[in-house]
């Protein structure tokens, strides 16, 4: 059979096999394994059948624990079943995995290996997750490449059916799961030949059926358990044989040969590395290189990690070996060594072999693993006393365990074309590069590899594409270090990143810039000019934004830049390349209609005409160097550590630079000036009505309002504008003069989303298009506003005790959540920011994993910050699934310490003075004035305690701050609250504990890419609900109300901000559990988020999103606890739905279904409204009043 090549990533390679060999697939999204589930869902939704002509049933569960349970049940009842997961997801599956293995059930679990969260979460790759599963009784088979991800998927499915032992098939997250590579496809006939129908029949014969009833899952006593546990031994003994037999069969079918432990290298090798996963390709590459230079080295690539086959492994290692280094991609603190090292050591001992064996760690959380590092390990083995338990790839300057390596060691063959392309997430760079890989991968004898690095920001994110093309399969599983082509698709990146770092001497440098070819050079930062000259780069320019704009593609420059890449790199003849690009455009956008294709074609044609070689002078022209990454007034830690990470040089930081326990300073986003907005708001005080709505809605706290004492205006820049404050609420300024009102934009922190301008109600009467704030091009405003902002940021905030309850006043409070990496126009962050303004200085936050934890806690810089007094939210993220419990725990700790402090105050009363003690213990801390007084008393207490020399006094000194009321907030998205964390959330709701739960409801899993949750509304298309969700949104609020003693609010800031504020204040003041469900518009809704507030209004006006407050305190007054804050619907759900892509997709795909779902949504909303109206009118009784 002739080989058919496909260009796919590891996830698709594995899923294509799993889908064809399964009947039931239960899944739950988790990075980086989500695409396997999504693809399976997509295939099934399109009617793609498995090998037996049946379309696999896909079911999205509420968590990985749920998916594992469903898998277990499906296996018991006899269906061929699979699932996909990673990291924490795998951990949630462990209990079921032990059962599935204990019951000897054929099953394959495909894992994209990812770090398990420890001192920090990481979405990137290591083997800590699969190592957690190594005691489950699952066989573990490891793929190292995209090709193997496909091949080993087939081998595991075949072997598990033979062996009855379940398999965990894994490959490296991102490096393999997301690497796009050309591989040989597995055909259906080949797969069919791999599977023995008799094995399936045997499996089915063991299923649970009332026709032949049996019982599984018994409880066993000491008399039976041990022997019964040992009864499975024979099956485990047979696994290696079954796997090798499957590999042999596979080789006969495909010609691709694999062994359980593949040895590559010199037959007489003296130094050998042992490892598994994608790193083994880099080792192979290095071994080939070293062997060709006469070195006696080799590598054993471990495929079957569990059960570990001692004899076969020992046989795989050449008899000549003298020293072995075992590389583990995981860390097991406290162990003798990491798992693979221990196994190899034991295996060698058991096999009676002798060699010096050392172990080391590499590649944690996708740390680069390069030939230079591999060589360092081989070199170490040469030493008379090589270091054991080393690390490689980092600089451990604390415990000195790291090996030195030569970062410049490069062995990539010259015939491989290497390219590095810098882009912005929103410009389509990665998408078109994936296409480029596919185009080249179609060619005969052309191998292609694409790997993509993203930063962690959701707005203005930078992407770096690393592409390789060559005549032989590409084994370089690391980033391109030396490129013959470097492109920068967004010129301002040159100011912040060392884009040309990877440019090889004589390389081509392509820049998207509006400067003409004869001018472009002089606008390059000095460092870039130096590199262009010293490396003798060929410099080309194109004004891609202009080209894209002129053909009507907005800022979508991907097609333009792709054409330039082909033109300049010469990977393919240009005519051929153009034909392929056009074809790819048709294929990609065909479903979008002819106009999209037409405009992309026009862009392709215009690209070549606008690409020019730039003039490069012979010497520097005096350009300024790059500005420092952070200003010199930044704190020391930010200068030393954060700045390095911001510049993309974090890899160079030594161990000593880092906190030992994952504790980081807050308030660091203010040092990261990203300057990503093309337009920023411009204020016209002459029509401003000082409503402060702009400040309230700003997702990034980048537009702020402040009352200013005229006395403070002394050093103000000339351009700094204020106006008289119109209201009398705040009396006079401390200087006695009337307050001035200032509105200021942070030009480098604004994302240009436009929400502020959209909510601004103040229009020029004669020209209503002009508002009190309008969006204006950032140039030439930037420099002026930078100065203004700098001045504004230093102004003192008004005294919190003077701030009243109204909405306007809330915006004079300092936001303690600023400049996050959230999407431009994010609907969640305005709520978080408001909470910090109201309660931030005494707030603890438990944050569920998700968007909130990423824009809230992903390095290098984080938005949670401190006020001018140094107080601010203390924030922590535990897990996705346990956040409610995590927050409850914080509350318990707060109360325990408060209780202890109070009892110490009481027992020390004679020494502290009765008045202070009484006031401390009886303090009313219901408002800011009360809180301020209590802080004063605590200060006085501390002063007194310092003068006391008793153990009790010392204890109290450390606990005194606990006497100031704390506010515990539990924050997360709907995926957490409605699905994975609901069990815990429910328990916390029932606890009565004084915590405030804020659910930022985007109605979809936003962070992992738009999978449906139980909060997804009727009629919305989402992943796993591609046809439009048919079931109504879960009524989380009503479930919480059923407890009767939980404060519940449903809010939509964009519809009625005053109600949001009222709910936040009431919830916080409520001395029990509070739940706020907040409508949050999201890019996953598919429209321009500058219209987010208009959509929120429509959601409320149509009854799709009810607003209410359920306050148990009202029961005591004989009132119904529920108050409906949204009016009787004024418009139809249809009017709301028609504006959002998530609903429009359904309409365009199936108009009839859309109409049905619109009607269903309207009926659902009306029915819910009817229930609420009745609840709001209900007559309640209470104990005291007895009615």
């Amino acid at each position: 059979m002739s080989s058919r090549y496909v260009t796919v990533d590891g996830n698709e390679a594995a899923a294509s096999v799993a889908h064809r060999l399964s009947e039931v697939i239960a899944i739950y999204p988790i990075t980086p394994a989500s695409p396997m589930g999504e693809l399976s869902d997509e295939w099934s939704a399109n009617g793609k059948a498995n090998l037996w002509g049946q379309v696999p049933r896909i079911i999205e569960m509420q968590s990985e624990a749920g998916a594992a349970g469903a898998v277990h049940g499906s296996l018991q009842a006899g269906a061929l079943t699979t699932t996909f997961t990673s990291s924490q997801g795998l951990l949630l599956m462990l209990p079921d995995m032990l059962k599935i293995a204990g019951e000897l059930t054929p099953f394959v679990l495909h894992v994209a290996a990812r770090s398990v969260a420890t001192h920090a979460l990481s979405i990137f790759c290591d083997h800590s997750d699969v190592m957690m599963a190594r005691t489950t009784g699952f066989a573990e088979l490891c793929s190292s490449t995209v090709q193997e991800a496909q091949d080993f998927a087939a081998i595991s499915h075949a072997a598990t059916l033979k062996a009855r032992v379940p398999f965990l098939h894994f490959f490296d997250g991102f490096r393999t799961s997301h690497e796009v590579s050309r591989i040989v496809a597995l055909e259906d006939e080949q797969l069919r030949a791999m599977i023995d129908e008799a094995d399936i029949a045997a499996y089915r014969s063991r299923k649970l059926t009332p026709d032949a009833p049996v019982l599984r899952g018994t409880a066993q006593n000491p008399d039976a358990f041990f022997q019964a546990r040992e009864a499975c031994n024979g099956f485990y003994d047979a696994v290696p044989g079954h796997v090798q037999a499957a590999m042999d069969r596979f080789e006969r079918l495909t010609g691709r040969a694999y062994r359980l432990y593949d040895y590559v290298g010199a037959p007489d090798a003296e130094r050998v590395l042992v490892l598994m996963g994608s790193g083994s390709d880099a080792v192979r590459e290095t071994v080939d290189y070293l062997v060709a230079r006469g070195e006696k080295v080799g590598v054993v690539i471990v495929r079957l990690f569990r059960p570990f086959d001692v004899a076969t492994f020992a046989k795989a290692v050449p008899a000549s070996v003298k020293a072995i280094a075992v590389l583990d991609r995981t860390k097991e603190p406290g162990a003798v060594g990491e798992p693979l090292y221990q196994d190899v050591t034991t295996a060698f001992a058991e096999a009676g072999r002798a060699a010096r064996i050392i172990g080391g760690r590499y590649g944690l959380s996708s740390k680069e693993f390069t030939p230079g590092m591999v060589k360092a390990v081989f070199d170490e083995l040469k030493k008379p006393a090589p270091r054991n338990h080393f690390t490689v790839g980092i600089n451990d300057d604390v415990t000195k365990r790291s090996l030195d390596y030569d970062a410049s060691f490069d062995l990539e063959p010259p015939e491989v074309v290497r390219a590095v392309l810098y882009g912005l997430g929103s410009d389509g760079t990665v998408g078109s590069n994936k296409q480029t890989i596919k185009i080249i991968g179609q060619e005969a004898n052309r191998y292609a590899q694409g790997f993509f690095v993203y930063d962690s920001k959701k707005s203005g994110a930078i992407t770096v594409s690393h592409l390789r093309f060559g005549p032989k399969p590409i084994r370089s599983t690391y980033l391109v270090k030396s490129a013959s082509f470097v492109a920068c698709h967004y010129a301002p990146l040159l100011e912040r990143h060392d884009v040309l770092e990877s440019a090889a001497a004589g390389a081509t440098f392509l820049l998207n810039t509006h400067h003409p070819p004869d001018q472009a050079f002089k606008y390059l930062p000095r460092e870039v000019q130096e590199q262009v000259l010293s490396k003798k780069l060929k410099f080309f320019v194109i004004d891609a934004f202009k080209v894209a704009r002129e053909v009507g593609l907005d800022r979508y420059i991907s097609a333009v830049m792709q054409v330039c890449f082909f033109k300049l790199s010469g990977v393919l003849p240009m005519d051929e390349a153009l034909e392929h690009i056009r074809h790819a455009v048709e294929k990609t956008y065909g479903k979008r209609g002819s106009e999209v294709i037409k405009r992309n074609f026009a862009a392709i044609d215009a690209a070549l005409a606008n690409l020019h070689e730039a003039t490069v002078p012979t010497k520097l022209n005096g350009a300024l160097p790059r500005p420092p990454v952070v200003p010199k007034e930044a704190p020391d830690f930010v200068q030393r550590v954060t700045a390095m990470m911001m510049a993309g040089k974090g890899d160079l930081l030594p161990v000593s630079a880092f906190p030992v326990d994952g504790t980081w300073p807050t308030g660091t986003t203010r040092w990261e000036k990203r300057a990503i907005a093309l337009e920023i708001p411009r204020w016209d005080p002459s029509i401003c009505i000082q409503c402060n709505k702009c400040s309230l809605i700003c997702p990034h706290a980048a537009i702020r309002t402040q009352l200013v004492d005229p006395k403070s205006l002394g050093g103000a820049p000339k351009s700094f504008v204020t106006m008289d404050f119109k209201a009398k609420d705040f009396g006079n300024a401390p200087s006695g003069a009337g307050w001035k009102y200032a509105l200021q934009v942070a030009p480098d922190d604004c994302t240009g989303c436009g929400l502020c301008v959209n909510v601004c109600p103040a229009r020029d009467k004669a020209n209503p298009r002009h508002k009190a704030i309008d969006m204006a091009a950032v140039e030439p405003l930037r420099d002026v506003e930078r100065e203004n902002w700098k001045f504004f940021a230093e102004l003192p905030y008004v005294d919190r005790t003077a701030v009243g309850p109204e909405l306007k006043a809330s915006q004079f409070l300092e936001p303690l959540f600023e400049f996050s990496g959230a999407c431009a126009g994010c609907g969640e962050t305005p709520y978080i920011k408001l909470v910090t303004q109201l309660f931030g200085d005494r707030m603890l936050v438990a944050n569920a994993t998700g968007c909130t934890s990423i824009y809230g806690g992903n390095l290098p810089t984080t938005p949670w910050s401190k006020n001018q007094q140094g107080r601010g939210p203390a924030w922590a993220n535990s897990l996705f699934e346990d956040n409610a419990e995590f927050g409850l725990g914080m509350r318990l700790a707060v109360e325990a310490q408060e209780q202890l402090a109070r009892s110490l105050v009481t027992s020390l009363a004679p020494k502290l003075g009765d008045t202070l003690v009484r006031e401390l213990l009886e303090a009313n801390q219901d408002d800011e004035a009360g809180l301020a007084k209590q802080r004063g008393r605590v200060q006085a207490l501390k002063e007194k305690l310092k003068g006391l020399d008793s153990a009790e006094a010392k204890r109290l000194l450390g606990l005194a701050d606990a006497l100031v009321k704390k506010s515990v907030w539990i924050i997360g998205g709907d995926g957490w609250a409605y699905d994975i964390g609901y069990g815990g959330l429910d328990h916390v709701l029932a606890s009565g504990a004084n915590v405030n739960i804020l659910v930022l409801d985007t109605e979809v899993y936003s962070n992992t890419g738009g999978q449906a949750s139980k909060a997804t509304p009727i009629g919305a298309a989402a992943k796993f609900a591609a046809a439009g969700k048919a079931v109504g949104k879960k009524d989380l609020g009503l479930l919480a109300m059923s407890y009767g003693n939980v404060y519940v609010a449903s809010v939509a800031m964009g519809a009625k901000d005053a109600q949001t504020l009222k709910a936040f204040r009431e919830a916080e003041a409520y001395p029990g559990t509070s739940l706020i469900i907040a409508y949050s518009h999201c890019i996953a809704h598919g429209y321009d988020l500058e219209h987010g507030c208009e959509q929120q209004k429509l959601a409320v006006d149509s009854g799709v999103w009810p607003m209410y407050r359920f306050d148990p305190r009202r029961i005591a007054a004989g009132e119904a606890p529920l108050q409906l804050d949204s009016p009787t619907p004024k418009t139809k759900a249809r009017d709301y739905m028609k504006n959002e892509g998530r609903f429009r997709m359904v309409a365009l795909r199936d108009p009839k279904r859309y109409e049905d779902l619109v009607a269903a949504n309207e009926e659902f909303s009306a029915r819910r409204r009817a229930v609420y109206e009745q609840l709001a009118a209900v007559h309640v009784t209470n104990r005291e009043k007895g009615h």
Partner: protein
Amino acid sequence: MAVDLSTTWLGLTLEHPIFPGASPLVDDLDMVRRLEDAGAACITMHSLFEEQLVAEQMAAHRHLDAWTELNAEAQGWFPSTADFALGPDAYLEQIRKIKAAVKVPVIGSLNGTTPGGWLEYARLIEQAGASALELNLYALPSDPQQDAHAVEQEQLFIIRKVKATVKIPVGVKLSPFYSSLPHFARSLEAEGVAGLVLFNRLYQPDIDTETLALNRVLHLSDPSELLLRLRWLAILSSRTKVPLACSGGVHETEHVIKALMAGAGAVQVVSELLKNGPRRITHLRDGLKLWLEEHEYDSVRQLSGSMNLERSPDPSGYERANYVKLLQGYHR
């Protein structure tokens, strides 16, 4: 002898002159069948609006495609399987379905914005099986650099190109806003246009005085709108030989008769059908027949144009005198 109700419209022989004009009625296949059962002489599709198609495609491109591959965790936020009908496919498919469902002719309708769009969609509508094509010549001139002549020349150019592209008869639906409608009608006649529809009813912007928003509204027609049509039917039918259709303000049999007398050869009805259902066609057709019989007319052809500028007993009534007379009447 039975009265001859037949007429010719866009080169097609119709059993009688009354049929639904361009409207959303055609979106529902069942409604189309009911219209035919009620006696509709042909079916006119609503316009395929190039501007809308383009806007939808680009919006989807912007909102769905532009949000992909920008984050390590999410390669996109939407299911990629969705098979959107973003191009003209849904419209063309509807023509095919209607063709298969009814025996009467189906007339396509098109509003383009670019020369390429006019030609491409005209060709596709013909391929989908339309018996004739109505070009909805609605463009709002807001560019002070472009004079009236240039506007007309551009429209004539497009008509010429479309005529050269398709074989089916091509009609033109006009707005009343031309400096010299008779001259433009002559020019259209010279291009070989098979019929003119008087007039397009346009979405009009309305101002919300509270929110300062513009709302686009389209009210259903009422009989007062007929008068404008009567005048121009009367004038144009005496100045060109192109068949004319009346569109707008026809609700009762009397209106049909007036439109025909003024010079229409065909009468389109929309608002009346939307308000009172497809059976109104039967009512209007039967009413016309009865009236012709009672008034001893032989045929619709005999009636058509009998009261136009050329033939009416007092033609000055259609020209400026009309205004003078009214004012005099007012003073009296």
